Every structure is written in structure tokens, then in C-alpha cells.
């Protein structure tokens, strides 16, 4: 019996191996906004990246809506939420006088202060990339529209890793998707609809991107595409018509009221049977006309032509790209179709839909009808948009972030 007891006891000895004090795995702390936001990734355009006034640096990046959302979610940028921080003064530094071509600091070629090496991470949570189209979220090397495929910052932001792949590496629990603006913007700023992404192409690649996002298991908030024809980068032909003629309830205003500026009657507002409301001048055209007139030169605008004309003394030439009514209609039709598709996708996939177009449109009163050339450069495009007239500045990003928060809270019952 003694032997048996000893044998039984001995056989139990290996179980003593469990006598060890274990440490625990630990988990990432739940952010104040809730576990839904433990890992937040922003897929987006230059708006998400934080471009302002034709440049980007850590200051503008911190004003971008993904940064604002991350903070609202309770995440700590640089610790549990990574963004591709650019060293000051930027990459490139923003303009402080876009009309004078002057940036906040001069840098030697290539004009980029590079990424801050102290903040590098295995992945970035803010994957906003300037100029990116929807197909390039899947393949950053696609160059379908070479005139607009200026993805120079893609290398700095993701290391040329495809954004959807880096998104997956971040194991997201929440994703914001803001894409599509560059599928129309390049065409608008260049005044040619040949650069538009066809709607079937947009839908194809948006669907593929959406599948990739859903495959991560993350909850999603998707923004629709803002109507690029309403951004202050563009000035309506009718605005110049009114400033010239003093019609429309606004006084004639120099230099547009000068005799050296001629505006065709077809540039009158729609209410006056003109097409000037749907004829847009890009910032270059508007600025060139303004400066030529102020300098004593002549300019003329005919909304039946595809370009505005200025005369610098050697004959009339183009002032810069414009959007004619046909192009305007094409762009608006495409944006409407894109937003219809995005809304359908959001509903089908259970995503929160952020009506970015509506949110920015609601603040249209803060968008000047024509750049404020006589005021300080910082107010060139009003209080919402930076000097390039395309990208929001701090106040504009607050509107965008609020729109995201409202949609997210409505859909997911959160309290951002």
C-alpha cells in the first residue's frame, strides 16, 4: 500500500509545474469614446490629410477632421493613433500668399521637410492622401489620369503601401471613408471633363474598397462627395457680371467695373436669362483678370467661350481654366450619381452616411462669391477655406468633423 500511495503521489508531481506567477497580456485601453473607437483609421483625400493653402505640416495636420475625430474618440495622437507627421515647415510648406507664390518658409528642392522620424509607426491611422482617386486606394501606383495623378505625398504617408493594405494592418475597429472628390476635382480645376472618373468606374472601385473595409470587421462612416463647383476656388461668371454691371443688387465694383473689362450678356445670372451661374472661373483665371484689370490691362469674359481672356498688351490670351455650362452640368450630374451610389452603399452595408456636401453647403454664406483679393491673404477665401480655395482650414474642418460626429452618433449610438 505504501508503494501504491507513493506512486500515485509521484505521478501527481508534474502538476506542480503550474506553480508559477503569470503576468497578463494586457490590452489597449478603451478610449473614452468607447471600444468602437479602439483603432480608428481614416481613408481619405487631401482634406483628411490636412492640406491647407497648397501645403501641409504638423499644424495643418492637427486641424484636419480625422485628428479632431480621433481626439473626440478619446485616442491619443502619436500613441494609439498615428498620423504621418510632417516636420515643420511642411511638405511643402503652405502658402502664406498664394497669389504671390510665397510659402511660409523656403526649402531647398524638393521643398519637403520630410516626415518627423520620432513619430514613425508600423502603420498610420490617418491615411488621407492628396490627389487620390478611389481606385488608387487599392493600388497607389495606378496612373489612369496622369494629368491629375500627382500623388507625391503617397510615399511619405504610406511608404507607397496601398492605403487599404495599411488600413488592414492597423486592425481597425472604426473607419471613416471620404473619397471621390479627386475623381471630379481635377477635371473641374482644369476645366475639362475628360479627367472625370466615369461613374461605372467609380462604382466598381468604390465597391471593391468597401468590401476591403468591411472585411476588417470595422464599423464605418462614409462621407459623400462635396459639390466641387461650390468651393471658393471657383468664381461664377455671373458674379463678375454683377460686379461689372451693378446689377443683381450689388454695386458695380472696381476693378471689374472698369471700362477695360467687358462681360458678355450671357454671363448674367440665370434669373436674368444668362448662364453665368453655371460658368465658373478657377482661381487662376479670377486672379489673373483681377490683377490685369488692376494693373490697367484689359480683360473680357464671354460665357459662351471656354476660357476667359486677358490682354497684357500683346493681344488677348487665356486667363486660366474655366468650367462652361456643359461641363458644369456634367460634373454636377456625376457628383449626384456618385452620392446616390454612396448613399446606397451606406444603407446596404449599415454604414453611417455623412452628408458632407450638405454640411459644407449649409455654410455657403461664409464662402465669399469671389476671392477677397483686397483683404489680408489669410481671408482670401473666407473663414472656412484656406488660400487655395479647395481645402478647409480649421473652421471648415470643425464643420466636417461635426458632420461626422453627428452621423456616427446617429447610426451607432455613440456620444462623440
Amino acid at each position, binding site marked *: 500500500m505504501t*508503494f501504491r500511495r*507513493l*506512486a500515485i*503521489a*509521484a*505521478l501527481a*508531481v*508534474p*502538476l*506542480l*509545474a*503550474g*506553480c*508559477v*506567477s*503569470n*503576468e*497578463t*497580456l*494586457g*490590452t*489597449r485601453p478603451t478610449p473614452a469614446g468607447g471600444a468602437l473607437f479602439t483603432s480608428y483609421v481614416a481613408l481619405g483625400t487631401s482634406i483628411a490629410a490636412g492640406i491647407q493653402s497648397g501645403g501641409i505640416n504638423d499644424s495643418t495636420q492637427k486641424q484636419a477632421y480625422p485628428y479632431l475625430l480621433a481626439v473626440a474618440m478619446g485616442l491619443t495622437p502619436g500613441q494609439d493613433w498615428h498620423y*504621418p507627421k510632417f516636420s515643420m515647415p511642411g511638405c511643402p510648406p503652405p502658402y502664406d500668399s498664394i497669389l504671390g507664390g510665397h510659402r511660409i518658409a523656403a526649402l531647398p*528642392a*524638393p521643398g*519637403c521637410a*520630410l*516626415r*518627423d*522620424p520620432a513619430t*514613425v*509607426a*508600423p*502603420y*498610420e491611422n490617418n491615411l488621407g492622401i492628396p490627389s487620390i482617386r478611389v481606385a488608387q486606394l487599392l493600388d*497607389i*501606383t495606378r*496612373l489612369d489620369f496622369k494629368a491629375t*495623378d*500627382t*500623388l*507625391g*505625398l*503617397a*510615399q*511619405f*504617408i*504610406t*511608404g*507607397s*503601401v496601398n492605403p487599404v493594405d*495599411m488600413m488592414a*494592418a492597423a*486592425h481597425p475597429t472604426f473607419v471613416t471613408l471620404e473619397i471621390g472628390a479627386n475623381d471630379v476635382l481635377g477635371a473641374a480645376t482644369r476645366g475639362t471633363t475628360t479627367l472625370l472618373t466615369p461613374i461605372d468606374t467609380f462604382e466598381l472601385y468604390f465597391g471593391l474598397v468597401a468590401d476591403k473595409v468591411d472585411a476588417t470587421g470595422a464599423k464605418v462612416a462614409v462621407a459623400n462627395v462635396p459639390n466641387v463647383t461650390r468651393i471658393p476656388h471657383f468664381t461664377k461668371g455671373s458674379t463678375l457680371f454683377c460686379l461689372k454691371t451693378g446689377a443683381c443688387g450689388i454695386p458695380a465694383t472696381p476693378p471689374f467695373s472698369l471700362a477695360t473689362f467687358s462681360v458678355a450678356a450671357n454671363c448674367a445670372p440665370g434669373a436674368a436669362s444668362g448662364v453665368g451661374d453655371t460658368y465658373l472661373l478657377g482661381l487662376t483665371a479670377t486672379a489673373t483678370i483681377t490683377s490685369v484689370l488692376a494693373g490697367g490691362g484689359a480683360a473680357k469674359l464671354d460665357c459662351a467661350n471656354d476660357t476667359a481672356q486677358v490682354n497684357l498688351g500683346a493681344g488677348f490670351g487665356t486667363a486660366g481654366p474655366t468650367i462652361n455650362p456643359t461641363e458644369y452640368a456634367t460634373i454636377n450630374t456625376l457628383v449626384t450619381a456618385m452620392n446616390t451610389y454612396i448613399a446606397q452603399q451606406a444603407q446596404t452595408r449599415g454604414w453611417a452616411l455623412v452628408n458632407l456636401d450638405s454640411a459644407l453647403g449649409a455654410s455657403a454664406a461664409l464662402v465669399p462669391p469671389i476671392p477677397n483679393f483686397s483683404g489680408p491673404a489669410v481671408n482670401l477665401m473666407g473663414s472656412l477655406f484656406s488660400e487655395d480655395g479647395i481645402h478647409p482650414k480649421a473652421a471648415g474642418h470643425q464643420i466636417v468633423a461635426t458632420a461626422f460626429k453627428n452621423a456616427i452618433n446617429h447610426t451607432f449610438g455613440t456620444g462623440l
Partner: protein
Amino acid sequence: MRRKAVVLAAALLAATGLSATRVLAQGFSVYEHDACAMGRAGAGVAAPCSGGSAIFFNPAGIVTGQAGKWNIAAGVTMIPPRGSFSDSVSGTTTDLVKNNIPVPNLYITRQFGTRLAFGVGMFAPYGLTTEWPASFIGHFLSYKATIQSLYFQPTVAYKVSPRLQVGVGVDFVRTMVDLHQYVELSSQLAQPGVTFAMLGVPVGTAFADARIHGDGNATGFHLGVIFKPTDNVSVGARYMSGVTITGSGYAGFTQLATGITLAVGNPFGVPAKTPLDALLASQFSTGALVTQAVSATLPMPAQAVVGVDVALRRDLHVLADVEWTQWSKFEQLPLTFTGASAAQQLPADTLYQGYKDAYDYRLGVEYAASPKLTLRAGYVYNTAAAPTFTVTPLLPEGARSSGIVGAGYQLTDGIRVDLSYMMLKQQDRRGRVIQPPTNGADVNQGLYKFSANLLSASVAFAF
């Protein structure tokens, strides 16, 4: 932008922390050198097993008093390490590659008269194979590390009196080290003063598979003493010196595909769709990543053990040992390279390890169930040698707790077999999978689990 040549700086190795010596800076001692001794949890410095393994467990113990007798014992312990790393950031868990590692031992002793004995033993008190899948997130520190350290120990022992015997041996040590790890790109210099990270390359981008292979020799010594104050009590002690192995070998690098195809407007000034790997390729043929010689000094720590054997009855012994291992010898580890040219030579590196001395507490029981059958059981607790700073994929070391059972059977007058089984469980320990930042921030981002079920078998011949 003009095309810029990609120049990996000479600081490459320091940036990666690539080092063979890092492998050795862990608690990787092996104590299972005989199935009989293992069955007692390794306790037995005061009364080693009779087959000849006393050469390791206490050189004084090879004197048996059986004049003219030869003893030859051979055995093997199968060590199948099992473990995993759970990442608290990604939530993923990666398992160790399942290896079964045989650790052999061989002992030969000869009694000259009743008071003198000679012997020679071969055993491997330090060694490891830690292998992770190459895709493991920790592959920049190591994905496969192998150490084979073989001790060859001629030994002589003398019985000074019926109650006192002493022994001494000379250790000839040969060590082989083989380390595989990936090399990370973002921390390398693309241009003077500009790292790839500053150009946007994500942390964790692998671009090279590095291998360091080397070997070396050293000589040490081993002392032991056994004293029997009473017929039923025996005390013993041994000391095995530390040795410093001057090793040499090579460091080789194989290019890995980063999978990165450069976008338009990239800062390298090359066309869109250019593979980044094409810009790096020359580094492996003419640059800093050509194969080059490496040399290092690899310390093997000293061991000291004291213990007691108490015969509660004629057929029942209780044995207890306390062992000290001088892991603190791994404070700083130097490594030097010799390239084909100055431009290709990687810089010398000194790694801080910060290990601390470790202790093992061993308790064994041996019961002679019959004249032929002996049953054994035991328990071992090992303290950790690795500080929090150096719990890495090389060997995620920590405190260990082991329970053992074993048995020996006398087949004939001259042949005995022993079998033992050990269940080893290491404490779950937080550790890291990346190089720590210079600011000292805690990067222990996951949990290492480690365990093993060891089987040992020995056969001893006496004639």
C-alpha cells in the same frame, strides 16, 4: 527631382541590433543530462547518480569504491519547446515552430583502486533552439536562434576519507551559434541624415534576411566535493567556471521583397511603379550588406551548487539543491565585423543586456521500490535571468516551475535503464518584439507563453 542613389549607412547593424551575442544573453541553460538525475529534479550534488553523470552533477561523485569497474552511460533528453506570443495591439497570437530537440549525453568512468577514479563526459549545459515562423512580427529580433554548446570534460576524483571525496575536471567547450533574423528598412539611412522612415517607409518593413553563423572554443574547469557528516546525511557542492568563448564566423544577408512599388512623385526621383527593391539590390552585391566576417566574445556563465541528501530510510532519500548561475556576466556584449572594404564594414556593436544572476531550487525524492526498481520525483523552481527589458523572441525567458517523475530499472547486474518525464511551465511574461526606442519607453506589447514536456532516457553499463 533628380534620381538619388540609395545608400545604406554603415550604421546598419547598430540600427538593427543584429548580433549573435544577443542569442546568448538569455537564460538558456540545460540541466537535463541524465534520466536518473532528471528524475530527482536535478538534485543530487550531495549524492549523484551512479552511472557516471556525476561528471556534470558533481565531479567528486565518480568515485564509487568499486575497484577496476568501468561505467559507461549514454542518454538523450528530448526537449520540445512550445510557446506563443500574443500581441496586445493586434490581438493576434503566433505559436513557436514545433521542434523536438535532442540533447545527448555520454559519460565514461574507470575506478582505479577504491579511492581514485577517472572519467570523461560530454554534455551540453547551454543551448537552445527557438524558432518562430518567419512571418512573426518579432522577426527583426530573431525568428530562429540556435546555440549548441558542447562540453567535453576529463575528470579525476579522489576519496580523501570514508566521509570526504573531491573531484576536478577540465572543460573543453565548443560552441556554435546560428542566428536568423530580418532586417528592418525604415531605420536605415537612405541618404546621409535621412532615414527611410522620414521618406514614409513604415516601421516593420523587412528588406533583408540576415544570418550570423559562428563558432568558437574555450577552456574552463569544474570542481566538486562531497562530505558525509553521518551515515544518513551527505552534503555536496560543485563549481563550474564560466568561460568566455572567442568566436568567429560570418554575417550574410539575403534580399527580401518589400512589396513596395513606388508611387508617382516619389522622393527617390524614379518613375512610378519602380520597385523599391530595385533601388536596394546593389547593397547586397557591392554595398554594406555583402557577406563579411564577424567575431565576438560569448560568455558562458559559471554555475555553483550546494545540496544535501538525507536518507530517511534505507530505501528513501530526499535530496535538495540550490544552484546559482552567473547570468550577470551578460551585462554588455561586444561584436565586431570585418568587411571586404571600409565602406562595406559594419560598425562594431556593444549590446546592453542587463541580465541578473539566477537561482534554481531543486527538491527530489528517490524511493527504492524493490531491489531492481527505483522511483523518483521532484520539483524545480528557476528564477528569471532576463530583466523586463530583454524578454524577446530569442528566448522569452522567465521564472520556471517544473514537476518531474522518473524510474530506474536494473535489467541485469551490469545494465540499468532510467526514464524520466518533466512538465515545465514558464511564467507567462510580457515582452517585446521590436527594438526599444532610445527614450527608454516600454515596448513590451504582448505576452509570451512557454512550456515543454521533456522526456529523458539513459542506459548505463557497469563491468
